[in-house]
C-alpha cells in the first residue's frame, strides 16, 4: 500500500458516538459545569490560561516559532516591501532605548469590555499579563512567577519554567514585530504590502501581510506604524472566510509608557491577597 493511500485512509477514518454515549457524557459534563468552583490555587501548568493578545492573534505562536527557526531564516528571508519610507533599520533604531511596551488587545470588537493587556519591560525582563480578572507577573531575572486568580484567595508564586524565554526570546519591541512578519512571509510565501495611510488621524505607514486568503482560513495582519517616530501604534488581525466576508479577530494597540506596574498589586491583584508558594506538584 502506498504512503499516500495510507495517509488518505487514516484521514478518512470517522467514528461517531452513539446517542447513549452522548447522553452519558453530556450528563457528566453538565454536572461538572454546575459544580461550584473550588477555591484553589491555579495549577502549575498554566500555559494557555492567560493568552497574551499578541499571542491570541497568533503573534506569540509566531514569535515562539521564530525563536526556534530564526537562525535558519535570518539572512535568507528579507522583507521585500516596496515604496515605503520606513525601513526595518529605521524601526530598529527608533526602538532602541525603548524599555516598556504595553500591548492592549480589545479582541474582535472594540469597547465590548473584553480587554487583555500585557506589559513587557525589555530592560528588567518583566512581563505582566492582565485578562479576565487574572493577573500574572513574571520576573525573568529572579525566575519567579506570581499568579492571581480571582477564584482563589491568595497570590501563588511559582518558579518560571526553565524552557520559557522572556518575550518568546525577542530582545525588543522591534524584534517581536520583525519576527512576526518574517515568519508569516517565510511560511506562506506571502508578500508584505506597505502603503501610506492614516490611523485615527495620525499619519502612518501601513504594513499588511496575508496568507491562505483563498482557502477560507485566510488571515491578514495589518500593522500601523507612526510615520514620524517609527513605532508600531496599532494592529488588526482579520479572518477572511471562504465567502469573502471578513471578520475582525483582534484590535491591538501598542503603547510605550515610561514605566509599567511595579508589582502584581499595581497590576490589579488586591492588596489583601497574600503571596503563597505553590505546593509541590
Amino acid at each position, binding site marked *: 500500500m502506498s504512503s499516500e493511500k495510507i495517509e488518505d485512509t487514516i484521514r478518512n477514518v470517522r467514528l461517531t458516538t452513539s446517542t447513549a454515549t*452522548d447522553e452519558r457524557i453530556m450528563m457528566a*459534563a453538565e454536572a461538572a459545569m454546575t459544580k461550584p*468552583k473550588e477555591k484553589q490555587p491555579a495549577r502549575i501548568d498554566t500555559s494557555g490560561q492567560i*493568552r497574551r493578545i499578541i499571542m491570541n492573534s497568533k503573534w506569540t505562536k509566531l514569535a515562539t*516559532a521564530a525563536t526556534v527557526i530564526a537562525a535558519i531564516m535570518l539572512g535568507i528571508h528579507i522583507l521585500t516591501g516596496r515604496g515605503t519610507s520606513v525601513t526595518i533599520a529605521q524601526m530598529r533604531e527608533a526602538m532602541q532605548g525603548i524599555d516598556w511596551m504595553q500591548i492592549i488587545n480589545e479582541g474582535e470588537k472594540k469597547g465590548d469590555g473584553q480587554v*487583555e493587556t500585557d506589559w513587557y519591560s525589555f530592560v528588567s525582563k518583566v512581563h505582566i499579563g492582565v*485578562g*479576565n480578572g487574572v493577573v500574572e507577573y513574571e520576573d525573568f531575572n529572579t525566575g519567579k512567577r506570581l499568579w492571581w486568580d480571582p477564584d482563589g484567595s491568595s497570590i501563588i508564586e511559582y518558579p518560571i519554567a526553565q524552557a520559557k524565554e522572556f518575550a518568546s526570546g525577542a530582545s525588543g519591541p522591534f524584534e517581536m514585530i520583525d519576527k512576526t512578519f518574517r515568519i508569516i512571509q517565510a511560511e506562506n510565501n506571502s508578500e508584505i504590502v506597505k502603503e501610506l495611510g492614516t490611523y485615527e488621524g495620525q499619519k502612518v505607514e501601513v504594513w499588511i501581510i496575508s496568507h491562505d486568503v483563498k482557502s477560507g482560513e485566510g488571515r491578514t495582519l495589518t500593522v500601523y506604524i507612526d510615520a514620524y517616530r517609527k513605532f508600531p501604534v496599532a494592529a488588526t488581525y482579520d479572518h477572511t472566510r471562504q465567502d469573502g466576508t471578513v471578520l475582525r479577530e483582534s484590535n491591538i494597540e501598542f503603547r510605550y509608557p515610561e514605566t509599567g506596574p511595579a508589582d502584581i498589586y499595581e497590576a490589579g491583584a488586591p492588596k489583601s491577597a497574600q503571596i503563597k508558594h505553590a505546593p509541590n506538584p
Partner: protein
Amino acid sequence: MSEDRQLLKGLHRGESAALRQIYLKYKDDLLTIARSLVHDINTAEDCLQDVFVSLASDGYRIRSNLKGYLLSSVVNRARDYLRRETAQSNFQVNMQTKRIDATETTNIPALDENMKTIIRALEKLSLEQREVIVLHLQGDMKFREIATMLDMSINTVQSRYRYGIEKLRQVLTKKEAI
C-alpha cells in the same frame, strides 16, 4: 474561529447550551483521534468523557484556541490511559485486547476493512509516532502547530511522522503478502 470564540464566551458565562454545541461540533473528531491513540473504543469514549468534564469545569480559563485545547486534552488523556494500561499485568492486557476486537466489530460497523486494518496497524507504532500522525491527519494540524503543542522541534515532529508512515507501510505490505 469566530464560532469557537462565541462558544467560548457562552462557556465562560456557564451556558450549558454552549457546552453542548462544543460537544456536538468536536465529539466525532475527538473520538476518532482518541481511538487511534488508545487500543479500544471504550477507552476512547472514556477519554472523550474526561475531556468534556474537564472542559466543563475548567473551560472558563480558556481564552482562545478551543480546538487546540481539546486536541491537547484528548492526547493527554490517551497518554494517561496508556500509562495505566502498561502498568497492568500481561494477563490483563491480553484479556483487554480480546475484548477490544469483539467490541470493534459490533460498535464500528461504519468502518470498512481497510480502515480497520490501518487502525490496527497504527497500534504497531510507538505512541510518539502515533500522536504526530493522528494529529496531522485526523486533527488537521500543521506540523508547526503539533510542535508547539507537544513542545518539541518541528524537525522531530516531521521525522516522527515520516518514520511512522514508513513503518505503517512496511506493516501493511507484510500483511498484504500474507
